């Protein structure tokens, strides 16, 4: 501050330097002119102090508040979206299980019907086979009876024929007992 006393009339200093510079003198280089330092420092202190106050009390809380509010809205919206997505996922899952259930049920019904039909068919077939078998048995029975009857008739026809042949050849009617014995022997042979 010692040099301060020389510049008590600092009022004219700026213009003086101005003129000197215009005159082409390199004597004074404005950034190094120490007599302007005090004024600049005082202005700087006031201006920066003011800026710090405005920034810390007003500007930053406001902008920070806006940013925080936006972040909150974003978070809420994102949460909402996540919840809705969860809901839709759950609905999709429910739909899929429902669909799978219905499909399984339909399949079960189809199998049941198929089995029932198979069983009925099986039963009808068995019944038919049974009736056919019984008819076959009856037919065989009839055939057997008819055959025995026919066989019986064959014996009497053979006896009659044999008697007639013998009578024609010999003129003597053969004894019935002898014819029968001969027939028996012939049939056995």
């Amino acid at each position, binding site marked *: *501050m010692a040099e301060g006393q020389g510049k008590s009339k*600092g009022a004219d200093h700026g213009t003086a330097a101005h003129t000197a*510079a215009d005159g082409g003198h390199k004597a004074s280089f404005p*950034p190094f002119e120490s007599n*302007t330092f005090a*004024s*600049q420092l005082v202005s700087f202190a006031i201006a920066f102090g003011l800026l710090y106050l405005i920034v810390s009390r007003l500007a*930053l809380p406001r*902008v920070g508040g806006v940013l925080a509010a*936006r972040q909150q809205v974003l978070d809420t919206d994102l949460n909402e979206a996540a919840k809705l997505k969860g809901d839709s996922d759950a609905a999709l899952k429910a739909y899929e299980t429902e669909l799978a259930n219905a499909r399984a049920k339909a399949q079960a019904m189809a199998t049941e019907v198929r089995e029932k039909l198979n069983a009925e068919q099986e039963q009808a077939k068995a019944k038919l086979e049974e009736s056919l078998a019984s008819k076959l048995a009856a037919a065989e029975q009839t055939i057997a009876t008819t055959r025995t009857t026919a066989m019986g008739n064959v014996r009497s026809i053979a006896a009659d024929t044999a008697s007639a042949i013998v009578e024609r050849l010999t003129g003597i009617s053969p004894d019935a007992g002898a014819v029968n014995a001969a027939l028996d022997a012939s049939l056995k042979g």
Partner: protein
Amino acid sequence: MADPIHQFEIHKIFTLGHIGNQEIAFTNSSAYMFGAVAVVSLLMIGGSAGRALIPNRFQSVAELSFEFVSNTVRSSIGEEGMKFFPFVFSLFMFILTANLIGIIPYTFTVTSHLIVAVALALMVFLTVLLYGLYKNGLGFFKLFVPHGIPIYILPLVTVIEVISFLSRPVSHSVRLFANMLAGHITLKVFAGFVTSLSALGALGIFGSVLPLAMTTALTALELLVAFLQAYVFTILTCIYLNDALHPGH
């Protein structure tokens, strides 16, 4: 040719008072400082006035600045560094706005003055020193004694660490000041060529296209430098503040 130093001159607008024999004046520099403060305040307060969920451009810029600085602070100091957020934010926005205003022709660049850069850097330095001592007590001096150094070179390393710590405000301030000063002088010199050449007649006007193109390119470069220097200042501030919070390397 226009004098490239002229743009850095300080003019008194009116006298505020006296400290001892030193006159304290409101100067063009003061006006631009308050201008920068007004621009930052308008941007941040006006930008957040709508409080819109979907920000318009204006609000976007305010939010972008907020998030840019808060991410820088958080990534380099951590969550506990957020108590310095208003300070770092003020620094960044003040420097950035002052630098950007300075690119507009006929304006004054506050940060091209050494004393302003020194004031900014010393403010950071003192904050680091005082907060470091307040928070860690004497443990703050562990900053100068790195871990894992053999005992026989430890004194040397400690001396180097102390010197490096003390030279921080110098490099911190000169980097900003010199970049702004040199950039503006270069711009002015090339822009000066345009006027001097075009004063030479038709051929001169034709020739002045080259320095004009150069000036345009330099202006773009200066835009980058304006942002970059504000960012570098800010990130260094964060690194230094990190030392105050965690001195144990």
